[in-house]
């Protein structure tokens, strides 16, 4: 028994053991590549659809800012919660985070925005402010005057006989400029975010 005790003590004075005891570390901790970090640019051109800002659940986390002659999404750390919705909502794959983009491609998933225009006829006075403020209307009919009248059929909405009329709801980009310009709060834009899945099968598209 005395001998085993000595063997036991001898174990603690071995140089290798002492070195291990004092300097043992686990492997350096690195985040695996598939961890979702803060979204980073992929290098593709931002088309200024602003879907990232619309999909973002955290206030003030993402902003699309001017960079040179283009646009670039800017992530604010301290606001961003790394949910990855901006990565999924972007139609041009400008941002990437973890393996969200690969997963979306493999599973055939996408997030699509659509916009509905709701006008309260009781509140609307037919002033036409929304029609003249709308940037899409400005593209379609640069001649549109203060009353919101237009003879162009390509505009989103126009005033006809003192009444607002929505023609092309599908052209709406969801910027909500009309909402802020309406003096009566009569127009409301609903941003609808839908998730789609189209399974990609072997050989069949």
């Amino acid at each position, binding site marked *: 028994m005395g001998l085993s005790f000595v063997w036991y003590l001898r174990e603690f004075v071995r140089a290798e053991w002492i070195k291990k005891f004092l300097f*043992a*570390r*686990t492997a350096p*901790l*690195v*985040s695996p590549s598939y*961890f979702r970090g*803060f979204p980073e640019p992929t290098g593709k051109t931002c088309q200024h659809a602003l879907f990232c800002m619309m999909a973002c659940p*955290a*206030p*003030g986390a993402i902003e699309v800012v001017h960079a040179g002659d283009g646009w670039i999404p800017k992530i*604010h*750390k*301290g*606001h*961003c*919660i*790394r949910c990855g919705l901006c990565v999924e909502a972007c139609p041009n794959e400008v941002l990437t985070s973890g393996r969200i983009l690969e997963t979306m491609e493999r599973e055939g998933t996408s997030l699509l925005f659509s916009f509905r225009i709701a006008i309260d006829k009781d509140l609307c006075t037919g002033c036409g402010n929304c029609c003249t403020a709308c940037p899409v209307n400005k593209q379609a009919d640069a001649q549109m005057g203060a009353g919101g009248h237009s003879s162009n059929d390509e505009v989103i909405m126009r005033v006809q006989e003192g009444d607002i009329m929505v023609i092309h709801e599908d052209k709406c980009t969801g910027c909500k400029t009309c909402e802020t310009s309406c003096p009566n709060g009569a127009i409301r834009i609903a941003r609808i975010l839908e998730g789609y899945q189209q399974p990609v099968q072997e050989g069949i598209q």
Partner: protein
Amino acid sequence: MNILQRIKNAVRSRSIHVAYVDVGSCNGCDIEVLACLAPRYDIEQYGIYVHNNPREADVLLVIGAYTPGWEEKLAMVWEKIPAPKAAITIGNCPISGCLFDRKGSFVDPPVKKHIPIAAEVPGCPPRPTEILQAILSVRDTVFANWEEEHP
């Protein structure tokens, strides 16, 4: 650098005592701090020990969006820590209030307004590795050569 300072640096770099205080969070970041203590991330291998007593601590981890109940109290906790000391905020809440800083809420972020902060770890919640890196970076920048820089 004299020999005494060298010894102090060597000892301090292997013995950081941490106290954490939750000033109104959702407990997500508390769980991540807890994960730091668990064997997978194991902060004690870096010589970081958790004592929830500010008088024994070197580093104060502040978690949460600063609710009104913590006015004056957080500064009191901070003053109790003996120098050299550093405060680190964990998560989005102490930086921006994030999801809690809405209209009608009483939280008062950032925590930076109330006590001096040495490092901020963004994320909701941040990963244990990020918390660990922040503590280790504070150790190297704040505590090294303390006596020579503050005679």
